[in-house]
């Protein structure tokens, strides 16, 4: 068996197709790694800037609170509380970009913030660049690698059948099982090996982030399961009575259908299944609610609205009250939109089970901390933190409006939720698909062997 494996590996490595596949793969992995490094560095820098900004504001405020300010100044301090909800760095943003490029990483939180417009600093990425898409390790594993496997494996056995050498090859190999194994392993290793090596390189040279190792293990398990599913499809097509050309055509069609067409169709048509109110309508409704709830609010400059402490305190309390009323008025509008969006997302997640590459991409993003579930978790936690902070500051305003060092220290702090999610269900499903296709292929091959 080992000898057969060595022969097949040598033959594979001397073939032009394999060399070309390897070259393309290495080039793509190089670019993907460079992109990944750049993205992760930006993710860390943005979070560091947001954290530093919040720390600076906190320190400055603490300094003011510690001072014995005149009452007219002291009553303005609750308005100056600035906190930041900063999401945890996705442990594998350099491997799977997912939503990391577009999702907000930080929100500035104060008495004036509202849950519906917490994230007012969206990513400034060039839309033209976003439109072209990102090339990361996940893209290579989901889109490029299966096509390379098809190029290397479409004629795995069908080429021998075409040339009439199938019986001879079977006799020399001592059976179809050892032959297929000896041909499969080097091909799988040629495609999966460099991907795993690139992952290892990124891990070895990248920053030490919490959960990075476990995330990488999950990610590679999903990637390998997807490649195994594709290899199962390649074996199955080879086991059918088709020529190598027919196998190539069938496999490329399958690839185009599942990797290219269905994900785009799912994204485009999930809205038809669960139509949501438009974003424009949501924002306009929010504005109408704002206007209706804020007629009392005159300005956002309490320092110039009055010069006496009591009047300023009243101004601050009134602004906080109006903000709370606006938030309450806006909440049902935002909730309607969020519900519809959640229904869309659930529909999309359900459809993804029928489209393995889509499922794998979502699982990889979940493993890497750049998935939708992680983003939703962060947004919810940021909104909850805002509510907690407002409640605490509301209590201060209700008491005497003065922020003491003890009260400042007792204000809630934001703890980011973990960005990663379990990938086990997706992994099991992909493994099942791989097993099913390989089983179908084994049954067909057994018949072929019997006939031979």
């Amino acid at each position, binding site marked *: 068996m080992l000898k057969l494996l060595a022969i097949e590996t040598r033959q594979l490595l001397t073939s032009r197709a394999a060399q070309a596949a390897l070259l393309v793969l290495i080039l793509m992995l190089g670019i993907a790694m460079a992109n990944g490094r750049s993205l992760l560095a930006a993710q860390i*820098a943005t979070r560091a800037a947001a954290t530093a900004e919040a720390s600076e504001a906190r320190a400055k405020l603490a300094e003011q609170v510690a001072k014995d300010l005149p009452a007219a100044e002291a009553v303005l301090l609750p308005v100056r509380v600035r906190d930041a909800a900063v999401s945890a760095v996705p442990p594998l943003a350099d491997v799977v970009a997912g939503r990391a490029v*577009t999702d907000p990483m930080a929100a500035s939180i104060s008495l004036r913030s509202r849950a519906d417009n917490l994230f007012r600093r969206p990513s400034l990425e*060039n839309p033209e660049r976003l439109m072209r*898409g*990102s090339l990361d390790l996940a893209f290579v594993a989901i889109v*490029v690698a299966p096509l390379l496997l098809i190029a290397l494996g479409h004629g795995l056995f069908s080429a021998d059948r075409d040339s009439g050498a199938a019986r001879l090859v079977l006799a020399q190999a001592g059976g179809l099982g050892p032959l297929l194994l000896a041909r499969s392993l080097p091909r799988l290793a040629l495609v999966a090996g460099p991907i795993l090596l690139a992952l290892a390189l990124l891990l070895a040279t990248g920053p030490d982030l919490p959960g990075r190792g476990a995330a990488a293990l999950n990610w590679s398990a999903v990637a390998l399961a997807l490649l195994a599913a594709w290899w199962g499809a390649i074996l199955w097509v080879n086991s059918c009575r088709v020529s190598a050309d027919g196998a190539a055509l069938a496999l490329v069609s399958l690839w185009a259908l599942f990797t290219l067409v269905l994900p785009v169709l799912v994204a485009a048509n999930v809205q038809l299944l669960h139509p949501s109110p438009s974003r424009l309508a949501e924002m*306009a409704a929010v504005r109408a609610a704002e206007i209706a709830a804020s007629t009392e609010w005159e300005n956002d400059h309490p320092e110039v609205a009055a010069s006496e402490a009591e009047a300023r305190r009243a101004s601050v309390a009134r602004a906080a009250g109006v903000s709370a009323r606006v938030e309450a008025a806006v909440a049902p509008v935002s909730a309607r939109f969020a519900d519809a969006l959640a229904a869309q997302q659930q529909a999309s997640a359900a459809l993804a089970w029928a489209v393995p590459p889509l499922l794998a991409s979502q699982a990889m993003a979940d493993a890497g901390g750049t998935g939708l579930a992680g983003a939703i978790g962060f947004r919810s936690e940021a909104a909850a933190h805002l509510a907690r902070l407002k409640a605490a500051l509301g209590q201060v305003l209700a008491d005497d409006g003065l922020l003491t060092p003890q009260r400042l220290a007792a204000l809630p702090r934001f703890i980011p939720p973990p960005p990663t999610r379990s990938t086990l269900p997706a992994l099991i499903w992909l493994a099942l698909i791989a097993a099913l296709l390989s089983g179908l292929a084994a049954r067909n091959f057994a018949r072929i062997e019997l006939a031979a």
Partner: protein
Amino acid sequence: MSTASIFAPVAAKDWLEFRRDRRLLLMAVLVTLLALAAVATAWVQITAYEADRRAVAAQDRQTWDGQGVRNPHSAAHFGFWAMRPLGPMALLDPGITPHAGAMVWMEAHNRNPAQARPVDDLATGLDLGSFSAAWVLQLLMPLLIFVIGAGMVAREREAGTLRLMLASGAALPRLLPAKAGALGRIALLLAVPLLAAAAAAVLLAGVPDLAALGLWLLVHGLWFALLVMVTVIVSALCRTAAQARLLLVGLWLVAALLVPRAGAGLAGVLAPAPDPVAFAQGIEAQMKSGHDAFGKDAKAFEAEVMARYKVSRLEDLPVNIDGLRLEAAEQHGNAVFDRAWGELAATYDRQRQIMRLAGLISPLVPLQNVSMALAGTEGGQQLDFQAGAEAHRRSIISTLNMDMARKAGAAGFDYKADPALWRAIPDFAWQPQPLAQRLAGVGADLALLVLWTLLALAGLRCAGRRLAAQAV
């Protein structure tokens, strides 16, 4: 035998083979159906968006006009939404619109980035483009043409019919143009329903720019010609149809999926966009360090205003000083915004230049640039929309500030403006740049596309000669 005389039988034979191959026929039918679905989906999306935008703009206007008596600065904080209109051509190629904000919040003190990017609400994780006519024509059709045409010449070689043709007196160098013609006919039959449906949908969606529509169809015709020539060249160079098919699929993978993404990645590495927090911090720092008519420069500002109005006490001013303070703060902010957003636009421009380099390796990149420009959905339009929104914001805020300055008197922030002031504020009206201006921005891309076509023509000639030499 001339090209004309060989064309008819070759085209007839290839058409027959295409019709007999049920797999290819099925794929062609499926792709055509998909293309029609793409046009229908885009039509539904664009018309719904436009209807929505108009309704929301009207509602927003009503909200603004009906806000009752209020301090102008309070109104300035509850400003307007500027919403980007989409022309009917956007249903052919949505371009950057899924990744660009559709609305800009225009308020006092801030220049806000565009919000409501459709991609933010995307429920799926694998972003391989927007389902549209352009997606089918630019991404899917090439794959289909490559798969259908891979065996055009290679199969003749495999079957030994190339030698037969030679023996019957056919000039092999002329065979390739004939093969290209035959594949072109098949491609045309595939594309015509889509192009006709797309054109009809555009005409139904509104009043399109007919010149832009014609050019868009023409450019995609050129694209198909290029694809057909590349297919025939590869088919002529490969020994077997399977080899040609895999090589063409590989070329497609590189040109359609990898190179544009690699170019975008390179642009991000070489000319990174600023991170949003640092960008906002930079603006905030400049705002604070500059003129502050409410804080550190208050006294100097008051003195300057009193001198301007030739009075010695604030109470004697014929205007409200707070209104002027707000206006001065806006003027300072505007200068800061111009610098920061100008730098951002320059970064985008550098990125665009880098991404354009990818067009030297993949003709899809210049095609996409030209297609987006013709559809009015390229990056330049988005920047122009955002600049328009900013100009409108400045005009509104200045009007409100100056109303407070002129009419507030001693009431200051307690002053309430008459609702007539809200009605005097004009609507936001932005129009896409004219076609000539958009085309000027993609001149290099057009030239590159023509160069690719000329190269393919030369390649077809060379492959024909090589084929003849090999057959002999």
